[in-house]
């Protein structure tokens, strides 16, 4: 897997190597200088100042950090920046201009899904990935796809309803 431009370390400070990575995030090029092991989550949040993607557990067990990498729903807290390569990254911040993303966001608003809202970026990204693959998901498919996303406010019933609403909109 490619490491993008600057695959050779530019800087050495202490024991942590810092390298430059060129990422394509939401259709835009961005260059970051980070330790290769830095999870994509923290590059998005702290280097690119895109805080819509959330930290919930750091071990891929809650789904709050879900983004699309090469179109695939991915736990950004587990993906080292050095392994992103030339795959494009899509985050919650670009979903309003994504044809499926917009429909899903609108369905979420129409269903009044959110409570605290902290997990909802990840929920929406997971739902978008599902609906891009399966246009009319069954209850079992919804449960399987959304099954790894924790919502402590317990919005699961409305998440199911919103996905059904979005699926209907997408026809």
């Amino acid at each position, binding site marked *: 897997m490619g490491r993008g431009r600057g695959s050779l370390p530019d800087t050495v400070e202490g024991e942590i190597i810092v390298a430059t990575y060129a990422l394509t995030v939401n259709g835009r090029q961005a260059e970051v200088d980070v330790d290769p092991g830095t999870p994509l989550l923290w590059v998005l*949040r*702290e280097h690119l100042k895109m805080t819509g993607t*959330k930290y919930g557990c750091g071990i891929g067990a809650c789904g709050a950090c879900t983004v699309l990498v090469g179109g695939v729903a991915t736990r950004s807290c587990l993906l080292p920046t050095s392994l992103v390569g030339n795959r494009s990254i899509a985050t919650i911040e670009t*979903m309003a201009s994504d044809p499926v993303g917009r429909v899903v966001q609108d369905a979420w*608003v129409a269903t009044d899904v959110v409570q*605290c809202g*902290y997990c909802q970026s990840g929920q929406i990204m997971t739902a978008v990935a599902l609906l891009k693959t399966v246009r009319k998901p069954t209850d079992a498919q919804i449960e399987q796809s959304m*099954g790894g996303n924790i919502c402590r406010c317990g*919005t699961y*019933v409305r998440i199911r309803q919103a996905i059904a609403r979005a699926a209907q909109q997408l026809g």
Partner: protein
Amino acid sequence: MLNRRTFLRASSAAAGGMLMTLYIDLPARAQSPASPTYPPEAFIHVRPDGTIVIQVNRLEFGQGVQTALPMILADELDADWSHVVGELAPAADVYKDPIYQLQMTGGSISVPHSFQQYRELGAKMRAMLVATAADRWRVLPAQCRTESSVVYGPANQSVRYADLASDAARRPVPGEVRLKTPSDFRLIGTPVRRLDSRAKCDGSLRFGIDVDLPGLKVALVARPPVYGGRVKSLNDREARAVAGVRDVFEVPVIRDGTGIAVVADTFWMAKQARDRLNIEWNLSGVEHADTSQMQTRYAELSRTTGNVAVNRGDALVLDQIPAADRIVGDFSFPYLAHTPMEPLNTTIRFDGDHAEAWVPSQFQTMDQIAIAEVLGLKPDQVTFHTEHAGGGFGRRTPLDSHVQREAASIAKRMRGTPVKVVWTREDDVQGGYYRPMFVHHVEVGVGPRGMPAAWRHVIVGQSHIIGTGPPWEGALVKKGVDELVVEGTADSRYAIPNFHVSAHQPTINVPVAQWRSVGMTHNAFVMETLIDELAVRAKIDPIAYRLALLSPDAKKLRNPLALLEEKTKAWRFRVPRNHAVGIACNEYHQTGVACAVEVSVENGRPRIHRATVTADVGMAINPLTLEAQFQGGIVYGLSQLVAGGAITFSDGRVDQRNFDGHAPPYMKDAPVAIDVHIVPSTEPPTACGECPVPVICPAVVNALFRLTGKRYRTLPLDSI
């Protein structure tokens, strides 16, 4: 917490350090209407473009108060709802709870305590706008009417609120205003979508953890593996070698312990550095809690009478009832973590004679005082911003404000630099402030018609109030019993004669706190499963049995039970084979909730196909949010039931680390469908947020009994 009709006022006095002074007044004060000293200009800002910004005196963390309070105010104001914005108010006296005089969000008080206040604010502002328009037109205010942010005069002349606002602000605030009659409400009682929804769906809403400032640094703290442990020695050479690390130093943490703070440019750098710290801890002299040993000790204690909470009738009647007519139950509940999705965090910049804080705070008054105390400032020298929080469930209200104290210690050292202290999920899962572990031992004597004739009940578990000092203890501890330990049993609405409840409240080196619905989490489980057992024994329908046993004045429970009967009669007796129905009800903060669930067993776990929930919350402000709160509260309650829900200790250390070994409910654990029905009411609004939580677990295990013949008295449910 603070659910009693007790009046607490916090004030700070800087005399040789900060002193917390809390006064306790009589309930009479609590029932008086909102103070007339709330100036509308502190709550309402009408912008020239017609936007009406309303300050919300609570934390928004999912419950929908940022929509509900503006709805109440906007209704009396006759504001154009499409141009209303709700903002979370900073810490200030004017934003304190009108009854408790503390700025806080807890005990499900937000709407019940601020309903009158926000109505009056809206009505006063409206009166000022109308009077301004009437003066301009040289007519009487009574000749004017208002609609959708416009004042209309007798000749049908009109003027927008936005064009009146600056003149209206110069008028005196009226002392008394007439409020609408409920039939005139346009927003209250209607389903209104949340104001914060879009920003929470496009990633733009800023939570506390998202706060960014010029020059911001991020700090993580390595805390001792046993509460109260201290740093014995530190080798930070490797940690300091991590790029971006700015400082590494010892800080005080809870229970007189110390930890090591690592300050770096980013979270990831701080975490890399923290992982490379080499710390030797001094763990001697602190109790090493061990939950299996505690289980044994608690079980022994539960066989002895504790401090008496209730002694009604003659409990000795029980001993005259033959063993065959007695039910004896031993119940066990683990420590529970709250795990709000947004990990704990606080950002502070200390400038010497002033500080600024950005906190997702459930308790601004106390957190502001705590920060000031650590920094040697007065509270009003700490500008305190209330940030949106990603859930809380009680985790953001510890009475010691320990998260803020720790952050202030770090900010003090980093003077001039804004520092955001972030807890990792591991820090949160292992960090304490849990719902305490509890054991109950109950003996029930069955009398005529299968009704309980005598009831002896012993509860064992930590109090999070005892030991905190006079204000809280004075309000909540009666004759050595913390009301929050026994609530749900001691104040049961069932008319049980010969009723004896006592409690042992051991001191354990594990910090504990309130957890959404507090004492109800375990007491309602015990009561509602035993009532079900009695109903089965008596061969009476579980709803009918409850209605028969409830005290005649328990209308807040009778109403939802009657509604539950009506709403479930179409399905309750017609569930598929291998499915069963369980019932439970509970009253908390004057709100009654009843619940029916349809359950089967799939892969050794309860599968909840549907839940019907009914509630009497008084007047419903926003039925759409109420439905959401009840659906969500049901799921939150299931945290007690899911297999990975417990926090356990071995030799002082928490056995769980993160959402791998410690699992809250996922979608598969939650009911597939939850229908919520609110009892129609014109009574003042009562609590909402905590009230659905206690009913779900007893309802589910009551259903499971009908499938397996087993009674489940130990949570979480490890096997069926």
